[in-house]
């Protein structure tokens, strides 16, 4: 029987990946952030998942405006780092888990989530940066990966409620999966940031910290967040926070907070991390 062992929420700012790739994690600018990540790295090291569902958004890397799916699940045996314009990040390819990913896809579609199935896709910083945050710089990632992409670039993103409900159904799918498998789920993106326009640089630490608290204490309330509130309070790109709600939806209502951490800034973004255990 498969089991969800934890949910992780984390920002996926590309500059965090660059800091790792360029050996700057101990620089004054980055040290507080990576010090804050260390307990999470230790925890996941002690609680090795077999497979991680990484919920993230593609940033005009593998997909484009030509065709904009709301939810994509990657069923491929391998996912290579995407060329986002710099050349691909020099991190390992991720090994997929086609058996598990097809099981998820079938379960979700039969239960009224209109998934897009990807047999081939590259993964951009949205997926590889959380892997680096949690697992450092191994030769190979220590587990299999199922990428789950969410459209948050083209308006409208799926609603907070829809994301949360998708999480509930993912949990049901995991519990219906036969093979003994320890599953973790990472909800990534955010926290508050606005990359665009005259309001670029917006960070709302109070909002982020409240979000982190409510993620444990009152997820049902977060589920009612509107797009306009998220964009107004957390910045247009802060709407990426809906992806944390997919993670939260997979956990039991009274899931326990193992660790939580917040830091400003990582580049133009409020960076948070949380671990929830079922």
């Amino acid at each position, binding site marked *: 029987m498969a089991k969800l062992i934890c949910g992780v929420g984390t920002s996926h700012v*590309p*500059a965090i990946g660059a800091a790792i790739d360029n050996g700057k994690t101990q620089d004054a600018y980055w040290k507080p952030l990576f010090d804050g990540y260390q307990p999470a790295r230790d925890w996941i090291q002690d609680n090795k998942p077999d497979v991680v569902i990484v919920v993230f958004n593609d*940033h*005009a*890397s593998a997909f*484009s*405006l*030509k065709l904009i799916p709301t939810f994509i699940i990657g069923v491929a045996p391998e996912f290579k780092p*995407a*060329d*986002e*314009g*710099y*050349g691909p990040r020099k991190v390992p390819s991720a090994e997929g888990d086609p058996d598990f990913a097809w099981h998820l896809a079938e379960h979700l579609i039969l239960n009224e989530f209109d998934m897009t199935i990807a047999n081939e896709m590259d993964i951009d910083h949205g997926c590889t940066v959380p892997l680096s945050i949690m697992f450092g710089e191994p030769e190979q990632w220590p587990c299999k990966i199922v990428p789950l992409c969410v459209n948050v*670039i*083209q*308006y*409208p993103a799926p609603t907070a409620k829809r994301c949360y409900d998708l999480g509930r159904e993912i949990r049901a799918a995991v519990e219906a999966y036969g093979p003994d498998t320890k599953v973790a789920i990472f909800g990534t993106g955010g926290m*508050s940031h*606005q*990359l*665009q*326009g*005259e*309001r*670029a*640089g*917006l*960070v*709302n*630490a109070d*909002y982020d910290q409240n979000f982190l608290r409510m993620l444990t204490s009152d997820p049902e309330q977060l589920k009612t967040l509107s*797009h*306009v509130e998220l*964009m*107004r*309070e957390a910045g*247009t*790109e802060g709407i990426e926070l809906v992806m944390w709600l997919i993670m939260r939806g997979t956990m039991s209502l009274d899931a326990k907070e193992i660790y939580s951490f917040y830091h*400003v*800034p990582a*580049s*133009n973004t*409020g960076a948070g991390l949380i671990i929830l255990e079922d």
Partner: protein
Amino acid sequence: MPKDYEDIPGTYVMDGRHCRLGYQLNMFCLSLNEAANREAFRADEGAYLAQYPVTPAQRTAVLERDWLGMLQLGGNIYYTFKLAIFDGRSMQYVGAAMSGVTEDSFREMMIAGGRSVEGNRSKKEQARG
């Protein structure tokens, strides 16, 4: 019908209208994901850009690196940032350019906690002062 998010100041939401306006511009930017295209663009920006049916205003905005102008003409930051990557520029550089400050002062603003949401929530609220 006015959309609720149009009240947010200094913000260009990528809705259907915006997507249609900037489609070719954004698809040009996207093409810079490929190394061969980056080389071709580097060799002759104007000729490369001419392959995309962008408007004259969009063309000027690209060639002049008018980062705010590109957004106003339908660009989306995740796409236009491909051009910044091409230039070797950071997101803070682009953020500074779009908000009309120097890169240094933008960086300092971020280290000090970023742009405050206070006074930046609503055009209506700003108009009331």
